[in-house]
């Protein structure tokens, strides 16, 4: 495309031979494409979530204080019945991981729906970037901000109740956490497209899923307490195995109360991560296609 030189945006707009395939001259400005654009998008979309933490302080009450109350309730019950001391640690770790589940269920899943309501979704689809990068950015922002909340719950809970940790493998612990988060946020990304299609009715799913997941994922007790098949079915929720593996890796009595061995749980978490992320990609592509074909997903009028 031939360009004229009366450029009101000086310096940056000239495409140089060094720019290669990762840059593109659209208009008079140099615009990154490919992986650079993808990375820029992920960071930019994660930014509001992370920066929002410092500007909206209500999370300190809703995401720290309230979960700590639940943790306290279980701790006092376990102390009253003289349960093994490691159970207190189980509850604190479970309470921290609750923050991730709440973030995925109430924030990540409904994010595309809210983007539509705000009028952002159409603008996102219209940009040259990938919608998957935008969704990944949402997930990354949610993950980072929730990690901070979870850490605060763990630190406060451990200090209040004098929890003793005995980490057997930091590498495995890190791997389990990362895989559990990949699978969990993959599930959230998949749910985001589904919630967009279902609109307001999706709220019922969130309501419906909250308490049963608390129960079957074993947030406040080891899932070994269930029968094998109940635990196996509950393992489709990534936090179930993630939490079980983490408890096995950080508490002395963890392995004896674990559902299956940590390596098996890591393999299953790998599979769940791949399945959920691929499903999220296809769901998103389907949603985008439907939006463009029917014209009713990106706006509220029809």
């Amino acid at each position, binding site marked *: *495309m031939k*360009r*004229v030189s*009366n*450029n*009101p*945006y000086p310096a*940056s*707009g000239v495409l140089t031979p060094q720019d290669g395939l990762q*840059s*593109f001259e*659209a*208009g*008079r*400005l*140099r*615009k*990154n*494409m490919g992986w*650079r*654009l993808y990375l*820029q*998008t992920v*960071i*930019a*979309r994660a*930014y*509001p979530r992370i*920066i*929002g933490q410092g*500007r*909206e302080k209500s999370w300190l009450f809703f995401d720290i204080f309230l979960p700590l109350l639940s943790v306290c309730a279980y701790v006092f019950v376990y102390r009253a019945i003289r349960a093994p001391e490691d159970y207190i640690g189980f509850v604190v770790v479970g309470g921290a991981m609750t923050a991730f589940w709440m973030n995925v269920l109430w924030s990540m899943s409904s994010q595309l729906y809210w983007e539509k309501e*705000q*009028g*952002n979704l*159409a*603008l*996102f*689809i*219209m*940009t*040259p*970037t990938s919608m998957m990068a*935008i969704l990944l950015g949402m997930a990354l922002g949610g993950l980072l901000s929730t990690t901070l909340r979870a850490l605060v719950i763990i630190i406060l809970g451990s200090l209040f109740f004098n929890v003793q940790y005995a980490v057997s493998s930091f590498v495995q612990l890190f791997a389990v956490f990362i895989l559990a988060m990949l699978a969990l946020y993959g599930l959230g990304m998949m749910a985001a497209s589904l919630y967009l299609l279902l609109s307001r009715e999706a709220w019922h799913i969130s309501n419906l899923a909250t308490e049963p997941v608390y129960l079957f994922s074993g947030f406040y007790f080891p899932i070994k307490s269930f029968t094998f098949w109940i635990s196996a079915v509950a393992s489709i929720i990534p936090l179930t195995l993630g939490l079980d593996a983490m408890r096995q890796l950080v508490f002395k009595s963890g392995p004896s109360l674990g559902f299956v061995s940590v390596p098996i749980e890591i393999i299953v978490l790998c599979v769940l991560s791949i399945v959920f992320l691929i499903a999220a990609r296809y769901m998103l592509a389907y949603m985008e296609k439907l*939006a*463009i*074909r*029917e*014209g*009713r997903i*990106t706006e509220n009028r*029809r």
Partner: protein
Amino acid sequence: MDFAIRTKKLSRTYKIHGGKKSEPHSLVALTDVNLEIHPGELFGLLGPNGAGKTTLIKILTTLLAPSTGHAWVAGYDVADEPEKVRPRINMVSGGETSGYGLLTVRENLWMFSQFYGLSSGVANRNIKRLLEVVGLSDRMNAKSSDLSTGLRQKMNIVRGFMTDPDVLFLDEPTLGLDVGASREVRRFIRSWVDDNPTRTLLLTTHYMVEADELCDRVAIINQGRVLACDTPANLKHNLQQEVIFRLEVSPFNGSLNAAKFEALPGVCNVIHRPQDGFESLELILEEEQALASVVTTLNSANIRLLNLQKCEPSLEDVFVKLVGQSMEEVEQKGETSEQ
């Protein structure tokens, strides 16, 4: 690139699913739209609410698939090659509430710039410069949730221009802006196109003055069809053979109505607007002599003539001539039928 925008027999029909009690039905939003817009043009789409302007923009910005026909933007088919169209375009809609209230104006704009692959340095420089142009630089670090509707719209306008697209779509860009701000924005829009002949801007509006003042060419659209497409001067010139009079007369009190005037020989169209204490009539006549019968009709109904003015035709007159009603009347009719 021969055309910045081109459409060929473009049509779009919505399937309305309806509620539990109503049957699904179809709504035709666009019918056989043919447009050819050259690079460097500031092109206006003029029509009432519900005419199909936004649907056309949605198709051209790759947000909506056409039901039939084709559309090309910057030389690429919007349905088959959206990935090639998207880096070259941007859009701003009037009254949009894009971005996040927790972020500042600058942060919101930076975020959108990243989705277009602009480096942070270039983005920040453009944002700063454009915020100065629209008079929003003093609110650069204010949270966007703290902005008034007008200021928010200025932020949206910066969002559209900061990526310096080949083709920019502005859908009612001055909606919600006060008179002064609208004038500033219009001046900037015009200069943006004039600065570089490769830039193209498609503007939809239902403000006749805006289209008249800004656009190189205008397409008048109603009920999904393009009724006329030419320069504002040519469109008005075609009306010159007819004569336009504006009359202010004493209240009719039920003795007369617009239909009685339209039945008179030589009267093409009448727009009747009851005002506080008088009636306003705008008449499009085939020739000046037809005014005599209008005055006679007024006299016979004991209606006093308060003011009489011969007018140069405006785009509104062009619209009335083409549609048979004023834009206000079309919109009111649309609202009534929706109810």
